[in-house]
């Protein structure tokens, strides 16, 4: 990992390319494997794509939610603070599976008949809200870790509160928050498997179906586990590279 730390931009690029190649070409090597894996290679590839999409969509939405709610928790405006505290308390205090089921069953009832919301979207919303709640605490800690002198210097130079936040506070807070956020993202790759409960055909669901047809759970679940490991490794490499990119200010 020393090389990855010294060349963060390349590592990020390589991890991205690797992930894309993996998604794109996964069906080819898998199709060479003996039954029950080979014949189902296309299904594995589809399931992996859904898992990655869920992770990326929910992960990026979750970061935005985390930043907004993290700021909200530090706001001087008391009702906003209450609201953000309530949100974190609610989503950290209830099971993720329940949240997914709740959104899947309740949201269509609230929305007007004409609006269709896909199973995938329901899963993505629930996962984003859940990971967002965990991100909130990381972001808040990160913001509190930025020395107040940095803000004073920016304000004294005439930067607006918004510019101060975007240019000074947020980048510096990310340096502190990123390891924890990366942790949450790695968890999200795995948590996305709970979407199988609302019939989203992601990787775990694919594995479950294939073993149900072939009666061979061992090779099927080993394949699924390997794919998850490759995905989480790619995501952590990516975030590790990002971390050292943000760490420049501390390097000697």
């Amino acid at each position, binding site marked *: 990992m020393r090389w990855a730390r010294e060349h963060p931009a390349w590592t990020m690029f390589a991890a991205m390319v690797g992930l894309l190649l993996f998604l794109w070409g996964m069906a080819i090597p898998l199709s060479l494997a003996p039954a029950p894996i080979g014949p189902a290679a296309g299904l594995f590839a589809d399931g992996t794509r859904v898992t990655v999409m869920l992770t990326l969509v929910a992960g990026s939405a979750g970061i935005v939610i985390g930043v907004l709610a993290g700021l909200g928790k530090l706001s001087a405006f008391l009702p906003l603070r209450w609201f953000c505290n309530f949100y974190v308390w609610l989503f950290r205090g209830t099971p993720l599976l329940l949240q997914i089921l709740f959104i899947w069953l309740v949201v269509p009832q609230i929305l007007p008949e004409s609006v269709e919301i896909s199973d995938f979207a329901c899963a993505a919303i629930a996962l984003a809200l859940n990971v967002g709640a965990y991100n909130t605490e990381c972001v808040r800690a990160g913001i509190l870790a930025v*020395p107040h*002198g*940095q803000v*004073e*210097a*920016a*304000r*004294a*130079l*005439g*930067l*607006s509160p918004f*510019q101060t936040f975007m*240019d*000074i506070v947020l*980048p*510096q807070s990310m*340096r502190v928050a990123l390891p924890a956020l990366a942790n949450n993202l790695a968890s999200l790759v795995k948590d996305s498997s709970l979407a199988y409960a609302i019939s989203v055909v992601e990787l775990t669901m694919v594995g479950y179906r294939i073993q149900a047809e072939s009666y061979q759970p061992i090779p099927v679940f080993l394949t699924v586990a390997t794919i998850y490991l490759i995905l989480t490794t790619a995501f952590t490499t990516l975030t590790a590279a990002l971390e050292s990119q*943000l760490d*420049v*200010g*501390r*390097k*000697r």
Partner: protein
Amino acid sequence: MELKPIIETQDVHKHFGAFHALKGVSATFYEGQVTAILGPSGSGKSTFLRTLNRLEPHDSGSIRVDGIELDDNLKHLDAIRREVGMVFQSFNLFAHMSVLRNLTLAPMRVRKMGRKEAEEKAMALLERVGLKDQALKYPVQLSGGQQQRVAIARALAMDPKVLLFDEPTSALDPEMVNEVLSVMRELAHTGITMLVVTHEMGFAREVADRIIFFDHGAILEDAAPQAFFSNPEHDRARAFLSQVKHGY
């Protein structure tokens, strides 16, 4: 020479909870003047300096900078902060940005200057403080004295009319104090208005046009350096001077 007022304060009060930090400070500072603000710690001199660009809002009284009233109006505040630069005791350079970016950020964001122009200007300023070679380094890679010189250059990049120095050498190792003072000395001759909170008596005596002595949240003496150092009017000032002289 006719003196044009640039900062006027009238009966400024400031409380921190029950502590009465500023007790009715009235003073006028003129364009091009270098004022050293002295006084024992806790006397309110730093607080006073920080009220001048509203890092500490004052509770009552009035502060006018370049004719603009410093109040809750954000437009006034922005206008004033564009004209008033500040140098801090702990430098407060932006830790995640290179030296060059520290200097170009505010001109690009606040003055809407183009990147090329901002960078040329930054390099010229870095040359002036003797740090042209350090432009691409990060603050942690510099010594304290170098960081403070960068901080001065960063404040100058906004072309301020007034520069506030809040104990600029107090956090420095002794061998680095002089490099910062010599930059400040050079600045003082350029005609920029400077207000310097400091414990450097030699600098105050040699460079300042005027000495203000704070005690218990109020201005006790306001005099020319010659008069203040050779013959202070009040016992408190005399005691303070003999204390700091012992330090040398």
